[in-house]
């Protein structure tokens, strides 16, 4: 099993764009370790020859005509934006 320590938790948090305070980190790491210990039981099973199931309805995927339909008005879509300007979402500075 992968060694679960604070460094690994911090690394995964970076990938997920999350962040934990130092005082939350111990508790979080401990619970994270317990869950990963629990899932270790899958090691009991030999599955080399088994195909993975990523999706249930692989044989059913339904198709439709590629037609132009009415979509939402831009003004409607922007109603929930925390910040906007003209027809755009506005965000903080991206480049220096």
């Amino acid at each position, binding site marked *: 099993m*992968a060694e679960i320590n604070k460094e690994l*938790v911090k690394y*995964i*948090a970076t*990938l*997920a*764009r*999350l*962040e*934990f305070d130092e005082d939350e980190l111990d508790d*979080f790491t401990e*619970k*994270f370790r*317990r*869950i*990963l210990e*629990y*899932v270790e*039981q*899958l090691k009991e*099973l030999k*599955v080399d020859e*088994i*195909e*993975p*199931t*990523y*999706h*249930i*309805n692989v044989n*059913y*995927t*339904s198709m*439709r005509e590629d037609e132009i339909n009415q979509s*939402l008005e831009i003004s*409607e*879509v922007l*109603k*929930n*934006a*925390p*910040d906007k300007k003209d027809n755009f*979402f506005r*965000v*903080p*500075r*991206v480049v220096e």
Partner: protein
Amino acid sequence: MDIKKLTLEEIRNLIESRVIKVRDVTEFYLKRAKELQEKTNAFITLDEENILNQVENLEKELERGFKGKLTGVPIAIKDNICTKNIRTTCASKILYNFIPPYDATVVERLKKEGAIIFGKTNMDEFAMGSSNETSYFGPVKNPWDWDRIPGGSSGGSAVAISAIQAPASLGSDTGGSIRQPASLCGVIGMKPTYGRVSRYGLIAFGSSLDQIGPFARTTKDCALVLEVISGYDPKDSTSINRENPEYSKGLSKDIRGLKIGVPKEYFIDGVEEDIVVNIQKAIDTFKNLGAEIYEISLPHTKYGIAVYYLIATAEASSNLARYDGVKYGYRAQNVKDLKQMYIKTKKEGFGEEVKRRIMLGTFSLASGYYDAYYKKASKVRTLIKQDFMSAFEKVDVILCPTSPTTAFKIGEKSNDPIQMYLSDIFTINVNLAGVPAMSIPCGFDRKGLPIGMQIMGNYFEEQKILNTSYAYESAVGGFKFSPFQEE
């Protein structure tokens, strides 16, 4: 006229024949919903003005001769299902102010049949939980004992039925989130076959597992709501284009010759004795009704939780990446750049359990771990699916407890994720396999808490499940779904 006791069909017929008014029914439930809200906390949003507007519009439609399957029936909607112009929060701070500009397909279909889109029900944050304790808007309480959890994640939708705050509701089920709360609250809840009901407008958690389904008091009510929300939707490529039966008309009590499988892996240590005893009694009832009982095996049952918490979290980590403060919902303030905005928004906007699952899923998919975790879990998922497929070669339906325990105390498991996850041990594999299943009331334990029995069926055999339920319901003389039923 005692509105409280009316079935959905009765409400519709009485309204369409002008014996009662749409307003009478909606106002009755609005009053109950408001009076009991402080005790149950079942609703996050109860937009009275919007509801009364719908009533007014429907009354005008009735003047013009409108007829529908659910005319004037108020239906409460879980708060992860988008309702146009009604706030939809997913019980999260990160969506606390989100007002969808469109209706989910299921909501559109309910409206088309004349239903009144009632309050938005409380839930675990992003449907991640089994106790309704992770909601940003506070826990939901179980009407059978206010100190206990109602189950989750669709706790509010289950309680709305058992506290008689609505006559029917919708929930969503990713690992048991309809069936487990239905069981713990003594009501009916059904998860349809994956692909039977459109997920368009359902805020995604685990996209290969999520399915919307009804909560109800009676099998017939459940069947009626299910037939309205089911069916192919071009907006959801995983919804399946095939015949959509009228389940309520197809109901039959005659289950002579029905082959019922009882899986030995669902009667293990840790299942409360009263639950086993009551399920045994139900099996005897089915025997008396002419069903044939077979002991069967679903050998990979015990791996379900581990598989689920690698797959569902992986899908969630991808689905929840969209909450970054750009397009809707909460945005952290006082940030120096875009990246910090993303991080602070997620840090401040998500609760602990949601963060845990995003982390777990990110780990399961991360380079270096993917094969050992996500891919391995997906292979074991194949074995779990095969268990069901071979079982359904021998039997028509499978019968087992919905949950290993009845409702537990608020706070009892909230600090122990593994214990909490284990409360879904009997519901989770159904989602991994994609088959339909239903939880129906099956008596009470010695504490007076409801017990649920689960009926699982093969792909697209909802009618068989409903008939099994209907036969049992008729044999026991109806369900006691609420502590307030006789008041």
